């Protein structure tokens, strides 16, 4: 029960944060140059068409009134029409979010596996050439933006090796399966199409890896550093003195506590991958939410901008809560603190 109180409290704070975020975004989106109604209907459309849209969007009202209308509709899941796709923003988000989610989840898995794996490898071989090689990789990965990896992967695996497709989520020879979850890998499996599943996975790997490279580098550094710190602790020396095998010492006594900072950062990384994915999505023609958000900003699509940022904000808040719970599960001290303060 105390943990439930902790979750509810965090949810309440998250709602407050989202409310504040919505106000900021609402104001910023409206003070950007250009008339959104004019942008939506085109530069050549007659003025009466612009006026009609301004009326529909309440753009002739004061900002607080506009915000009231927007918030009222948003509470009912109605973010209005996208001025770019001409569809309800909610429909767009439902269509594009799963593509980003699939990409980010796969990138997160790669980041966790790659980052923790390399970190453990580096810590186990501390101060050897393996450690140095992982460190060089980590520094390179941290300072290189994901779109550079995306371009390199397209050139290497697409142009030179012809090993991976460079656009889309499914090959031309396949008809996309019926949308159930919006996650292509899952939907192809649900449709019982193993060949399409393999193809979808084949399309997913390169963009996910490009997106994950920075996180892999980051997590490997943190894991290595955390493990190296804990390696000198008394309880590890005691475990070794008791004759416990090195495998058990590393895996059970050292890795678990060393993962706390890694998991915390990984959670934040996964959440931020949503917002930095747009260039990777552009390069791989991946129909995700980040790319949709970028297009919305370029076209001053007010409704879409506000909704996308709110969704990303909600994802960030949700992941943060999830990370807190995982960390609490990993560390009894944190769990105890959380239950006391709840």
């Amino acid at each position: 029960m105390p943990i439930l109180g902790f979750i509810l409290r965090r949810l309440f704070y998250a709602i407050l944060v989202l409310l504040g975020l919505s106000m900021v975004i609402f104001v910023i989106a409206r003070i950007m140059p250009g008339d959104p109604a004019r942008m939506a209907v085109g530069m050549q459309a007659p003025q009466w068409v612009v006026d009609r849209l301004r009326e529909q969007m309440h753009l002739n009202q004061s900002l607080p009134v506009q915000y009231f209308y927007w918030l009222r509709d948003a509470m009912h899941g109605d973010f209005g029409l996208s001025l770019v796709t001409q569809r309800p923003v909610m429909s767009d988000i439902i269509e594009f979010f799963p593509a980003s989610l699939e990409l980010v989840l796969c990138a997160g898995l790669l980041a966790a596996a790659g980052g923790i794996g390399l970190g453990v490898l580096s810590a186990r071989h501390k101060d050897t050439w393996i450690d140095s090689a992982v460190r060089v990789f980590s520094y390179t990965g941290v300072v290189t933006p994901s779109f550079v990896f995306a371009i390199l992967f397209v050139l290497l695996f697409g142009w030179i090796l012809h090993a991976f497709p460079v656009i889309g989520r499914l090959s031309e020879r396949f008809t996309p399966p019926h949308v159930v979850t919006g996650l292509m890998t899952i939907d192809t499996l649900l449709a019982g199409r193993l060949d399409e599943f393999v193809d979808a996975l084949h399309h997913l790997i390169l963009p996910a890896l490009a997106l994950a490279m920075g996180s892999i580098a980051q997590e490997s550094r943190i894991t290595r550093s955390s493990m190296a710190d804990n390696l000198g602790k008394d309880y590890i020396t005691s475990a070794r003195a008791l004759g416990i095998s090195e495998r058990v010492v590393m895996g059970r006594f050292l890795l678990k506590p060393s993962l706390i900072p890694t998991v915390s950062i990984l959670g934040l990384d996964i959440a931020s991958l949503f917002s930095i994915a747009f260039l990777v999505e552009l390069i791989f023609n991946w129909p995700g939410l980040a790319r949709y958000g970028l297009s919305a900003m370029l076209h001053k699509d007010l409704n879409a901008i506000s909704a996308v940022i709110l969704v990303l904000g909600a994802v960030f808040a949700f992941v943060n809560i999830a990370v807190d719970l995982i960390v609490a599960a990993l560390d009894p001290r944190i769990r105890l603190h959380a239950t006391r303060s709840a």
Partner: protein
Amino acid sequence: MRKSLFVTLASLVCAGILLTSLPAAAAGSRVLRVTFAWPNVIDPAIGNDYASSSSIVNLYDTLVFPNAKGGVDPWLATSWNVSPDGLTYTFHLRGGVTFHDGTPLKASDVVFSYNRFKTIGRGFAYLVTPNIADVTATDSRTVVFKLAQASALFLPSLVRLYVAEESLVKKNTKAEGPYGANGDYGTTWLQTHDAGSGPYMVKEFPLEQYLLMARNTTWWGKFNPNAPDEVRFIGTTEGVTVRTLMQNKQLEITDQWQTFEAYQALEKIDGVKVAALPSMTSFYYMVNTKKAPTDDLHFRLAMEYAFDYDAAVGLEWPGTKQMVGPVPASLAGHDASLTVYKRDLDKAKEELAKSSYAGRLDQNPVVVQWVSEVPDEEKYALLFQSNMADVGIKVNVVKVPWLSLVENTSKLQSSPNIATIYVSSDLPEAGLMLKQRYHSSTAGTWQQNEWLQDKKLDAQIEDALKTLDAAQRYAKYSRIQQELVALAPSIWIYDQIEKHAYQSTVDWPATRGETSLIQGYVFFAADIGVSQR
């Protein structure tokens, strides 16, 4: 451990190669794949940008079809009669035309499409509807258009009146929507479906990704014997992606938005050519004639003579030419005999000495605003700045986002001395470009930073546009162009050419000058031939 890691990685790459080498579509099929800048809006009453136009011309038929000479040919209308006063056009529809679902075309579908276009008021409605008083179907094969005043642009503008199937649109219309009794007028459904009779129909349309169109085997028109079975318009213009697709032969034609260097690289790929198509777009320096110091004719003439046009054209793709006068050379009615300004520093200094700002140049800098979303414009702005410095004119170059420039040009006070903008004509007719660029009705829009507001010029343009006889009309256009050259309200830099890399196996009529230059028609896929896979 290391060995197994190596084996795993090698297996992954091999599996990847195997998967990638699988045929992309059924063997023997023909496919045309083209990249475009997205979004792509396929509702015929809403879409009007490049990708949208290119899609819609393949999905819908029109009453008339534009030809390469700048005129129109019969299409859904096999013939038409014009009343002596030029105010009534009676169109006779082709028999045996069916929509994609098999429903026969009726004259009432044309009326419905027009009314829908007019009510929604978007897309190309501004081009088609303003001068039309009434449209009626007198029988199932006859449509009558009544005009408010005679117009030379009426017939060519009908290439944008796409005919949609009334019953299908009504069946898919939501009761609630912004168009009163018409609800949403089918706009929601038509975002991802079509209701046309054109040579291709929508097969798949995952938004943000691609539009896949399948051949309409019951189309009434004639296909190129090697016309594609499927047309895939892909929503990406990313340089490295496009180049990889071209190199891997997974793309037939690229978009026109690649960089100069990218086209050079694409041209080096085996079997890839770069087409430089003429266009109806030109690059203008729009000079504000109401703001100091560019309000002085001699000052403007000094700028005309100080600018190095050859250097500017040299920055573009080979084959690009300096503009001759105020409209692109590709438009009917363009006067090729006009005076062309060339760099002549003596003349520039002479004109400057005559200007009211002579001796006060330092206190009267010229502000040039270029569009930040078009990075290439910066090099022209810097060239201009350097050229003007040669005669003592101080130039402040300012980078502004497109939306800010649109806002700035909407009011005289905020309009810069010079706005650098590419402008396209919607129809291949000089009169339309003259109207959109220099008529008072466009002052205060991004299309006219010149603020000419000259009533005499307005009347001349309106009169020319009402003249139905082509020879007389072109003579009037010519006089207007001559007067504009003397007024020097713009620096006419170059006529843009539209660049596309394409596989040499593609039989593309546009590369031979056999298609209309109206936006979208170079991608009329029924005329394009592609090789079998």
